[in-house]
C-alpha cells in the first residue's frame, strides 16, 4: 500500500459500490418484473395477465431484501465512530 493512494480501499469501494449501488436497483427491477408478467404468446400486448401468488410472494421477498439492505446501510452509518 502506498501512502499517497490507497488502492486497497479503492477496490473495496468499487466492489461494495457495485454490489449495493447497482445490485439493489437490479433486484428492485426484478421485483417489478415479477409483479408485471409478460403477456401470453399469441395474445395482444394490452391483454396482460396479473401476477399470481407465487410471483407476488417472490416479489415481496425481493422488496424485503432491498429494504433490509437499506436498513443495514443506515446501521453502518449509525455505528461508524
Amino acid at each position: 500500500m502506498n501512502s499517497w493512494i490507497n488502492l486497497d480501499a479503492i477496490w473495496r469501494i468499487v466492489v461494495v459500490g457495485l454490489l449495493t449501488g447497482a445490485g439493489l436497483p437490479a433486484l428492485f427491477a426484478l421485483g417489478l418484473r415479477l409483479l408485471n408478467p409478460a403477456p401470453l404468446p399469441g395474445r395482444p400486448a394490452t391483454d396482460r395477465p396479473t401476477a399470481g401468488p407465487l410471483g407476488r410472494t417472490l416479489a415481496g421477498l425481493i422488496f424485503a431484501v432491498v429494504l433490509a439492505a437499506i436498513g443495514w446501510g443506515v446501521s453502518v452509518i449509525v455505528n461508524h465512530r
Partner: protein
Amino acid sequence: MTGNDAVLALMVATALGFDFTNGFHDTGNAMATSIVTGALPPRVAVAVSAVLNLVGAFLSTAVAATIANGLVATGEVTLTVVCAGLTGSILWNLATWYLGIPSSSSHALIGGVIGATVAAAGFSAVKWQGLVSKVIVPAALSPFIAGAVAAAGTVLVYRFTRGVPEGPRGRGFRYGQVGSASMVSLAHGTNDAQKTMGVITLALIANGTLPAGSKAPDWVILSCALAIALGTWIGGWRVIRALGKGLVEIEPPQGMAAESASAAVILSSTDFGYSLSTTHVATGSILGSGLGRSGARVRWQLARRMVAAWLLTLPAAALVGAVAYWVANGIGGTAGVVVIFVALVLASVTLFVASRYPAVTPENVNAAWTGTVAPEPTRTDEVSR
C-alpha cells in the same frame, strides 16, 4: 464583550453561513433526479431532504476528524484564518450556485481554509500528503467509480424490466427513487454537516475555548444540523435544474440507478474516512445513468463546464481565502475580521439579488432545458403568477 469574543461570534456566524450554502448548493445531489421525474413534488422533495440531513447530522461524527486534523497544521490556525478561509468557501459556493454549477462544497471549504492558512503561515503549514491522499485522489476517482456503478445499474434495471409496460414501470421506480434519494440525503447529512462542525471545533480549540482533542460541543452539532437543514429546505433550484434537466433527460429507472450508485459510493467511502464530495459522486452517477440507457443524450458541453469548475474549486476558493486573510490581517485585529465579514455579507446579498432576475423556482425548475440555467419566462408563467 471583548474583541476576541466578537471575532469568535463572527467566526461561528461565518461557519454557519457556509453550512447554510452547503445545504442549498447540494440539495440537487440528492433530489434533482426525483424532482425531474415527478417522483416527489419539488417542495416536498426539499423538505424530505432537509429532515434527513438534520437526522444525518446527528448520526455520525466520523468525517469531521479528517477536516480538523488531516489537512493543516492545527498550531497555525487562528480565528482570523478560519474566518478568512470560510469567506473564500462561501463566495465560491455562491458564485457557482449563481451559475448553476454543481461544484463541491467540501472542496470549497477545504480550499478556503488551506488558502488562508498558506497566507498566514506559508506552504509548510499544509499537510500536502493528506491533501492528495484524502481529498484529491478520491475527488479524481469518485465520479468515475460512481458513473460506472450507475451505468451498470441502469443497464441491469432496463434489461430486467424490458417487458414491463411504461405505466407500472414508471410508478414502481418512482417509489424506488424516493427511497434511494432519501439515502443520499441522509449520507449528505452525515458527511457535510460534519465538515462544518469540524471547522468550528478546530477554531474553538485553536482559540483555547475548548481543550485540545475535544469533540464538537452539543450547541455546535445542533446549530450546524439546523443550518444545513435550513439551507437544504430553501433548495438550490438553479443547481437542481442544471443537474436534473441539463446533463441528461432522466427517466425514473435511471434516476433510481443514479441515486443508488451515489448512496452506495458515498457510504462505502465514509467507512474508509474519505470525505468524498457528494457533488462529484452525484454528477458522475447521473452521467453514468445517461450512458447506461441507450438513446439517452448526454450534454457533454455542460458536463465539461462542470468538470472545469471542479478543477478550479480548490485553487479559486484558496485564492479568495488568502486574499481575505491578507485584507483582515492588513487591517488587523477585530476590525479586520469585521471588514471581511461585512464584505462577505454585501457580496452574498448582491449574488442573491442577481439570482432573482430571472429566478429559478419550484414552479419552473422542470421547464425544458434550452441551454440556460434560468428558463425563458413564458406567457403562461406570467398568467399563473
